[in-house]
């Protein structure tokens, strides 16, 4: 365990060192992300200051939904960035060199490329999130715990999804689209699921499951979550994780180590 932490730290520093070799691009990308966040934030704020309510949620609550989405999305991008660089490792065959190292390959290909600028962005997101949660009110100590627990649940789900993407990277060439569609789908979770009409809502909430990932934690925070849905979310996450780990093992058995 201690070794894994040390390796995680080392991979992260190396990834940061390498990232700063292309300074301009990295900075511009972060600026773009920040811009997108700010403009959408202003849009939602401006809109709700006029209409007061969105699907029954007031302005502060709606913003908590948006900020929670931003947070989970950001943490997912930050932690699992290396997944988006996995395909070239397969194509070149360099993945073989990782498989013979005495650590779990996920150390390197799943969480081995922390995005430094996303780390920096996490701070303002957190401040805003805490500010608006406190402003929205309507939560207790217990629901706050449930909220944090469900965010962790969402991150596990995100991880499971990224493991699935890694497996697909070994099995097929169509990986880039899978990740992009996932990003667009998850963006649909930047607003409360309640705005979507049935059957789309159920589909998005429980099957895809953007709702479990982005919306359910906030509902937990505001104490409007039934235990059924809570348990479903946790169970879904566990089953999905087990499923993607199984597929990963299958994928490793089919790995062909071409390239070079």
């Amino acid at each position, binding site marked *: 365990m201690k070794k894994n932490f040390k390796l995680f730290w080392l991979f992260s520093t190396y990834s940061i060192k390498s990232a700063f070799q292309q300074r301009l691009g990295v900075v511009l990308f972060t600026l773009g992300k920040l811009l997108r966040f700010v403009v959408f934030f202003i849009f939602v704020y401006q*809109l709700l200051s006029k209409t007061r309510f969105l*699907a029954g949620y007031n302005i502060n609550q709606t913003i908590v939904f948006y900020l929670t989405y931003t947070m989970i999305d950001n943490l997912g991008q930050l932690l699992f960035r290396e997944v988006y660089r996995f395909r070239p490792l397969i194509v070149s065959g360099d993945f073989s060199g990782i498989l013979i190292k005495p650590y779990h390959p996920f150390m390197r290909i799943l969480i081995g490329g922390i995005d430094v600028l996303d780390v920096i962005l996490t701070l303002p997101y957190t401040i805003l999130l805490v500010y608006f949660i406190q402003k929205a009110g309507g939560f207790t100590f217990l629901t706050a715990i449930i909220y944090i627990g469900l965010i962790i649940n969402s991150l596990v789900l995100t991880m499971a999804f990224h493991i699935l993407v890694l497996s697909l990277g070994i099995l097929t060439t169509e990986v880039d689209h899978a990740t992009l*569609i996932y990003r*667009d789908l998850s963006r649909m979770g930047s607003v*409360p699921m309640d705005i*979507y009409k049935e059957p789309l809502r159920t589909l998005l909430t429980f099957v895809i499951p953007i709702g479990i990932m982005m919306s359910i934690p906030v509902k937990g925070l505001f104490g409007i979550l039934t235990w059924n849905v809570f348990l479903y979310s946790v169970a879904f996450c566990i089953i999905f994780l087990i499923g993607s780990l199984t597929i990963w093992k299958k994928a490793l058995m089919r790995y062909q180590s071409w390239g070079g």
Partner: protein
Amino acid sequence: MSTFINIIDVTINQYFIYRLSFVLWRFRNFLNLLLIYFLWSGVFVGKSQIFSYTQTQLISYILIVNITGAVVLSTRTHEVAGEILSGDIINYLLKPLGYSTYLLAKELADKFLNIIFSMGELLILLVLFHPTLAIVATPQTGALFFIFLVVGLILSFHLSLLLSLVAFWTPEVWAPRFIYMVFVTFLAGNFFPLDILPKQLFEFFMFTPFPYLIYIPSKILIHGTGTNVGSMLLIALSWCLILHFMVRVVWNKGMKEFSFFGR
């Protein structure tokens, strides 16, 4: 002319090879459309009017934007960056056919396919959710819509091309384009009609080229022609000239740079 059609043909055939990519790209577009559509439908619950829009008008706006977006924004000019970086652009420059002709033909093919698909998406949405639509369909608005559509198309082509020409100087071409896309998403009117923004902000943005990409043409169909159509057209056309000039200058400078390094 026949070579022109040939290129269009080849481009469309390329899409059939990469059809999965194209279909998935449209699918992602559709997801975004759903998000915006439901966001706005949700906002109107218990309200008849927000800003200067009724629910019917705003939903119509969002759906029209999907079509205008397909006409104006779909482009292949981003590939120019790759052709510059790999040096392949030389192959085109050596051919008797002008590079611009080649680009234009590819653009047409791209737009053609995107328009077809966006129409299909609109149809799916209409069938699934039955929104009521309302547009001002007079010959006058029709004509103006068309004029601004063409202007928007010219602007978008030049902006996107300009971003690709950055490749003459640096290989990091994706970051500036990403920022451009963020601008387009919000300031071109993809997410919301721009006139819901605070007045000063809105008036400031009207001096940039972004609103003329999709917001203005779509808006004309919703609210009819306003009094200031003339001045807007003037600003938009000025941007066309400025951008065209910039593309020429940057292209010539870039080509010199290019031959200088002898890539």
